[in-house]
């Protein structure tokens, strides 16, 4: 009997409304371990390159890891993956909350979904059984109403629901997947994939718990970890202030994305930071068995910007997306915009980027109120942001074009709007400026999903003695956030694989290595105690690399190449003011860094993993997939 996982992958055919269970065996689990690697495996096996992401042929995967549901703070995440309708590349997004562990308790480690239901349905998975349920009374509802309705229909308030809102139903290409309206698989448009399959939601309920090989040892590590969370400064900060605590530091360092990444200092940042947030704070929230409790709930009895504690509070990314990025210092409007997106099922990072794009086009006369039926969309106007959310979700007027994402929208609008459309591999950027974090900029350029801020360490933390947090993986040189030298490439290459442990094992970064309360040593000890495997940091980091190479090959197969491993034009231009005034990413230096990364990774000059690399990673089966 496996420990930590079920040994069962649930396959669903929506067209036929049939399901079966695959039991891939221990070696498979140990090779791929979880999350994005499980997803890449099935996407590479089952998807034909060139498939339309919104067709029934797309493959949609919900995946936990071999350790999800072990009672350790932060071991609660899951991945949703498919070919992305936003980027046409590998699409994936992780979320915390309660859904991942519940799926494991219901008897499955992952769900692989194909086809399209003839009518809207939702899946109800309970203790090893699957029901295809008619969604006629749920389709059209927002995420909150859908949650309540599904709880009522299945007669169980403890069911955990991953659902889409109207945005996913209308195939908005940056629609997200919501779980319990507080946690979101936000990026790369996974909600539109559910919508295209007529799949409103996946509801899960499990009554068993996962068994560990050495339960006492797991408990000991969990106790140590929870005690450390209480005194470890990065976690003290998250518990007290949540992610809104990042606004002040980023602004003071001159890298708070402002007005479509034009600037790095926002004059209204004091009205958006953790102190300001206190005025709308209702309570703290958490994810399954997590002692950090970094989530924020907000409440406000306001006629214009009402806030409901059940509809989620804005995290840092959303505060920047609907705040500094659009020149808005009205936190109440940020909170309202966030809640509308949560209900409708829109990714706030993309929606903020879309809004900033439209605002800069207005500023430059590329778009005018003739394009919007009379509505002016200017930087600093929070109500314009709220208006655009409605237009996009209804796919009304200009909203219909914007619902295709910034890249496609700018191509359709033309008129020079492309110069203000900032995406990487077609993905909108999370709210971090690569000019002040060059290692993270490498991460954005090289991520298979386009720009991704949680696939890589952010340089700033590893300055001076901070680098000691990565000593365990052999990184001894401190990092200079503004340099793109060879030390930075080394930092990025090692750091990315260390960071990737969390994504691979579906663990929350905010509880884990390298910065937060977990240590590399105890993480490995915990994986050993949960699974019973005689594993090591080496084996786990090798699995991380395997996962990255698999998603790389997925993209190569889809026609992406080295020319797509780049960042936005604006980061190659000098920062106009603030503490890092004049700093930019030198284009040649940055390209050289990417090429050295290929080399040290065992990739050729076209960014293709060599056959030797595939052999090392036990991925020879992918050699025929490699474009010649």
């Amino acid at each position, binding site marked *: 009997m496996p420990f930590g996982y079920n040994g069962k992958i649930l396959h669903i055919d929506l067209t036929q409304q049939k399901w079966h269970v695959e039991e891939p065996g221990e070696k498979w689990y140990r090779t791929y371990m979880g999350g994005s690697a499980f997803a890449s495996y099935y996407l590479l096996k089952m998807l034909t390159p060139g498939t339309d992401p919104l067709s029934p042929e797309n493959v949609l995967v919900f995946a936990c890891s071999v350790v999800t549901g072990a009672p350790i703070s932060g071991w609660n995440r899951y991945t949703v993956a498919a070919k992305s309708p936003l980027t046409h590349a590998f699409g994936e997004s992780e979320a915390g909350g309660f859904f991942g562990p519940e799926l494991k308790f219901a008897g499955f480690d992952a769900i692989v979904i194909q086809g399209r239901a003839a009518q809207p349905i939702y899946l109800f998975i309970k203790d090893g059984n699957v029901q295809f349920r008619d969604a006629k009374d749920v389709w059209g509802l927002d995420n909150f109403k859908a949650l309540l309705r599904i709880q009522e229909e299945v007669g169980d308030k403890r069911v955990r629901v991953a659902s889409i809102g109207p945005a996913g139903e209308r195939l908005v290409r940056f629609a997200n997947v919501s779980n319990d309206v507080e946690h979101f698989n936000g990026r790369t448009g996974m909600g539109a994939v559910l919508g295209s399959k007529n799949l409103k939601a996946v509801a899960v309920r499990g009554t068993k718990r996962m068994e560990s090989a050495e339960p006492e040892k797991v408990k000991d590590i969990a106790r140590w970890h929870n005690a450390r969370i209480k*005194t*470890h*400064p*990065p976690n*003290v*900060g998250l518990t*007290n*202030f949540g*992610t809104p*605590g*990042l606004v*002040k*530091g*980023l*602004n*003071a*360092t*001159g*890298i708070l994305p402002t007005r479509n990444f034009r600037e790095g200092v926002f004059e209204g940042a004091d009205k958006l*930071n*953790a*102190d300001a947030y206190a005025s709308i704070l209702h309570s703290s929230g958490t994810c399954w068995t997590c002692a950090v409790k970094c989530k924020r709930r907000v409440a406000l009895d306001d006629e214009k910007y009402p806030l409901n504690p059940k509809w989620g509070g804005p*995290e*840092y*990314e959303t505060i920047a997306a609907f705040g500094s990025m659009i020149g808005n210092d009205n936190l109440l409007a940020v909170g309202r915009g966030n809640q509308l997106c949560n209900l409708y099922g829109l990714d706030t990072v993309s929606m903020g980027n879309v809004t900033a794009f439209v605002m800069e086009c207005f500023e430059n006369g590329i778009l005018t109120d003739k394009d919007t039926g009379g509505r002016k969309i200017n930087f600093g106007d929070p109500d314009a942001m709220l208006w655009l959310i409605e237009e996009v979700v209804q796919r009304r007027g200009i909203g219909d074009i914007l619902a295709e994402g910034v890249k496609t929208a700018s191509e359709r609008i033309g008129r020079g709007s492309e110069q203000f459309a900032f995406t990487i591999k077609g993905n909108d950027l*999370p709210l*971090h400026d690569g000019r002040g974090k060059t290692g*993270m900029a490498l991460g954005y350029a090289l991520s298979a999903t386009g720009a991704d*801020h*949680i696939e890589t*360490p*952010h340089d*700033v*933390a590893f*300055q*001076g*003695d*901070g680098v*000691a*947090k990565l000593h365990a993986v052999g990184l001894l040189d401190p990092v200079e*956030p503004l340099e793109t030298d060879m030390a930075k490439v080394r930092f990025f290459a090692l750091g990315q694989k260390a960071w990737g442990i969390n994504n691979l094992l579906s663990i929350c*970064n*905010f509880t884990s290595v390298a*910065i937060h309360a977990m240590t590399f040593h105890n993480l490995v000890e915990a994986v050993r105690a949960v699974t019973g495997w005689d594993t090591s940091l080496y084996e786990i980091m090798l699995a991380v690399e395997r996962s990255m190479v698999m998603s790389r090959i997925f993209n190569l197969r889809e026609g992406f190449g080295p020319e797509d491993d780049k960042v936005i034009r604006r980061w190659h231009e000098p920062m106009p003011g603030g*503490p890092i005034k004049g700093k930019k990413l030198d284009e040649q230096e940055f390209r050289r860094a990417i090429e050295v990364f290929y080399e040290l990774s065992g990739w050729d000059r076209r960014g293709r993993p060599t056959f030797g690399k595939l052999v090392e990673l036990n991925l020879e089966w992918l050699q025929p997939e490699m474009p010649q």
Partner: protein
Amino acid sequence: MTIRVRVSLYSGLRTDRFAEAEVELPEGATVNDLREKLDLPLQDIGIVMVNARSGTFQQRLQPGDRITLIPPIGGG
């Protein structure tokens, strides 16, 4: 009695302060006392290193200790 410690500040924490300095503190002072002396609000600090190891706010400082303070500016 007082002790002297070596303090390095990074990124935005340097504004109106310093990059590196010796700081005098009363004997028995903790990282938290240092933080207050430098007028650094709790929310401004993400990472605390004491002699290249993860430190805590409650940690007592010894003469000659090397303290690194970095603001919280990661992702999330």
